[in-house]
């Protein structure tokens, strides 16, 4: 039972200060830019929602949003089942368990630009094992020139990079299931599939919710890895939302539209996460003790 004590705010103060400095101030700046047109160092004109409307009509944005949705959904559809599968195959204890954990987690600890670099090299036809092998198997493969190849490479890279997160979360969830459940299932004569469907999967629900939310969020914000790998190309075939925003803000220096889009971008993620979270909560009702 928590005690009511407003003096707890003192304990929270350091967090608020740090995060406020790093988050609220910049956000204020963004809001500022999003409703003004900056013609010169001292000339600001209030334009209201003009930037917002312009951004929403931008066909480049539509394209980037569409590609982003496909990317995030594909990523989820592959990484979640694959993560569950791999977690099921991992040993429960002993040195083999620690060893597998370390090896599996390795891709998670690589700086994101190095991830891009690894796959940049790996996918090349001349010096990369993957590119060389695929080309020699008779399939023409060129991730810099061909859009489909670029897409596949970006997807495979993300799967390689982030499935370990799903694996680790599911592994933790599986370890939390008491032995008694498996023992009871044995006594009940349950098949292996029944054990998965009726014991493991339900008990993984909380963990999977976290995994889906995290992966959706992070894939929606992805920037560095595809940027290093394909630069968003060929053309804009692999340009997703973050890169679109960066191009606008830093490349073209369209501060107004960039700021407007930043706010929209954030709101989209917030909305999706809110909806996803509530949906998963509802799927799990009837489970409260």
């Amino acid at each position, binding site marked *: *039972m*928590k*005690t*009511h*004590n*407003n*003096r*707890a*705010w003192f*304990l*929270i103060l*350091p*967090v*608020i200060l*740090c*995060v406020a400095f*790093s*988050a609220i*101030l910049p956000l204020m*700046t*963004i809001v500022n830019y999003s409703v003004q047109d900056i013609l010169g160092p001292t000339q600001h004109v209030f334009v209201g929602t003009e930037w917002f409307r312009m951004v929403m009509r931008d066909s480049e944005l539509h394209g980037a949003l569409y590609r982003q949705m496909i990317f995030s959904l594909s990523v989820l559809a592959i990484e979640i089942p694959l993560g569950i599968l*791999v977690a099921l195959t991992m040993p429960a204890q002993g040195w083999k368990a620690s060893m*597998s*954990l*370390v090896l*599996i987690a390795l*891709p998670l*600890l*690589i*700086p*994101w*630009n*190095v991830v891009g*670099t*690894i*796959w940049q*090299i*790996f996918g090349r036809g*001349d*010096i*990369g*094992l993957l590119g060389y092998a695929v080309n020699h198997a008779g399939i023409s493969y060129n991730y810099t020139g061909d859009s489909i190849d670029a897409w596949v490479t970006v997807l495979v890279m993300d799967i*390689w990079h982030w499935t370990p997160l799903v694996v680790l979360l599911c592994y*933790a*969830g599986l*370890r*939390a299931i008491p032995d008694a459940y*498996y023992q009871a299932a044995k006594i009940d004569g349950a098949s292996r599939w029944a054990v998965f469907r009726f014991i493991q999967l339900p008990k993984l629900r*909380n*963990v999977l919710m976290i995994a889906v939310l995290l992966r959706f*969020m992070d894939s929606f914000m992805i*920037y560095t890895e595809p940027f290093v790998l394909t630069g968003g190309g060929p053309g804009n075939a692999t340009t997703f939302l973050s890169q679109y925003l*960066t191009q606008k*803000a*830093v490349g073209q220096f369209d*501060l107004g539209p*960039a700021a407007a889009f*930043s706010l929209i971008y*954030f709101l989209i*993620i917030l909305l999706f996460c809110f909806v996803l979270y509530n949906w998963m909560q509802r799927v799990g009702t009837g489970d409260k003790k």
Partner: protein
Amino acid sequence: MMSKTLTRPILALYLLLSLLPIYWMLNMSLKTNEEIVGALTMWPSNLTFDNFKTIFTDPSWYDGYINSILYVVINMVLSVAVALPAAYAFSRYSFLGDKHLFFWLLTNRMTPPAVFLLPFFQLYSTVGLMDTHLAVALAHMVFNVPLAVWILEGFMSGIPKEIDETAYIDGYSFPKFFVKIFLPMIKSGVGVTMFFCFMFSWVELLLARTLTSVNAKPIAATMTRTVSAAGMDWGVLSAAGVLTIVPGALVIWFVRHYIAKGFAMGRV
């Protein structure tokens, strides 16, 4: 659980595919550029450590590593230090606006870093923190602190309140209780938190590169400089990449027992 005959091959296959790209980079880091461009081989025919030597002797290279490690450690320490009291407050007390505050904290994690690019650039220039390790550490706190508070709050809620009350009855002051009694009990939680803070700060590079130019430049920025007149310096680039994996691999090697134990305790 599943029969061993089925699980072991699947796991082995996954591990093989997972480690293959990393191995490939390691492979290239031990070859000369000529060999790389010349023919494709699974292991170096002329093993060479020259690429690594270049990195260790060229300050523009190893400075990058030192800078990265510096801001990551600063971030780790600051994030946990700031998150500990906050997590305690969320765990033990209810107060005006607590749920809204918690939600606001989480939204920081949901904000795309790209959104912060320009504002951060202006903000840190204004306060004169541009191109410092502190700037990157602070910037990374935006998404690490919410995560730290979230994880720590979970672990803290697992400790019964009676322990706090007993300590106060025994005459402990709050700071003494926190340091001598409470912290040791959530040791593994602090460990997990520090690991995740390290991880997310070490791998994030968009903000790190934006906020730095010369003095605090992380290894990421340095690596984009490997194009020379002779063409792409694949060997050195690969060696640099390999070296960025080493700190992460070391960290996770040392904490592997705690992670395995943390999982065994069933704490997500």
